């Protein structure tokens, strides 16, 4: 039962953080809050048995992303202007509809954690049953990531590569000695 309470607590904190992010207008606080959000998410992932994901989320979400956003903020300033537009119904509508559709979709799903759900009994069961024998690795996530779905991971690596190249494109490559950007 302790799991249950931890779970509830974490989720409540997540909601609070998310709402705080929408309200706060100091970007520095927002970035910090989003780092917190990532850490809470990571903790949540641990609760849900996704240790690899938790590790990654902690390293990326709370680490790299936060550092990156801080670096950005150092360059662009940290104050968000007060909303100039009148309160508009459109965003609320879009968000509500999206939320309702997700609720609609999830409410027909098997209960949370239900071992009989289709998701656990079609593809994943085979991974659990045979990956240890076929790859010799105890970490199923690693064997699925690198071998069964190794192609996805190749793509993922390429995505990171693309991001690095894109940043070079936008802000100038490291190779060139430091100088002011030539665009302006």
């Amino acid at each position, binding site marked *: 039962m302790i799991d249950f309470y931890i779970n509830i607590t974490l989720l409540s904190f997540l909601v609070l953080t998310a709402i705080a992010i929408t309200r706060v207008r100091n970007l520095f606080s927002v970035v910090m809050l989003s780092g917190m959000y990532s850490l809470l998410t990571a903790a949540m992932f641990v609760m849900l048995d*996704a240790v690899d*994901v938790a590790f990654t989320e902690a390293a990326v979400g709370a680490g790299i992303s936060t550092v990156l956003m801080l670096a950005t903020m150092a360059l662009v300033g940290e104050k968000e202007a007060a909303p100039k537009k009148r309160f508009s119904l459109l965003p609320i509508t879009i968000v509500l509809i999206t939320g309702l559709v997700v609720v609609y979709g999830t409410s027909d799903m098997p209960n949370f954690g239900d071992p009989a759900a289709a998701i656990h009994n079609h593809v994943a069961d085979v991974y659990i049953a045979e990956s240890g024998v076929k790859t010799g690795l105890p970490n199923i996530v690693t064997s699925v990531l690198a071998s069964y779905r190794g192609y996805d991971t190749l793509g993922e690596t390429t995505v990171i590569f693309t991001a690095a190249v894109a940043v070079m494109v*936008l802000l100038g490559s490291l190779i060139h000695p430091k100088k002011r950007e030539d665009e302006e």
Partner: protein
Amino acid sequence: MSSLGLYNYWVVVVLMMSGLYIVVAHGNLVKKLIGLNVFQASVFMMYISMGKVAGGTAPILDESIKVYSNPLPHVLILTGIVVGVATTAVGAALIVRIKRAYGTIEEYEIEKHEIEEEETNAAEGLTCF
């Protein structure tokens, strides 16, 4: 744990909505980007929640364990997180450039600049025709 029912998913929905709301409603580009992160993170949580098996443990094989949580969502979300940070990096770089080009990162001010640019163009156009 089964008493939770679908509670987990619905909390995720709330997170998702707040993330999307930031993206749609806020004009500050940094905030938008963070909203995008929140939105994506909540989707990741939805996936991981789907992979949870009651009474299961992390999918690392061990003699003594019988029930494991579903590893596939974990794999997918690992990829998802990477994609997310990649997007954040590109977005942040774009914001830095936009700040330099326009002197602001508020959407409506940028729009104002662009409309002005368009109008000066149009004025030139009229003299030409």
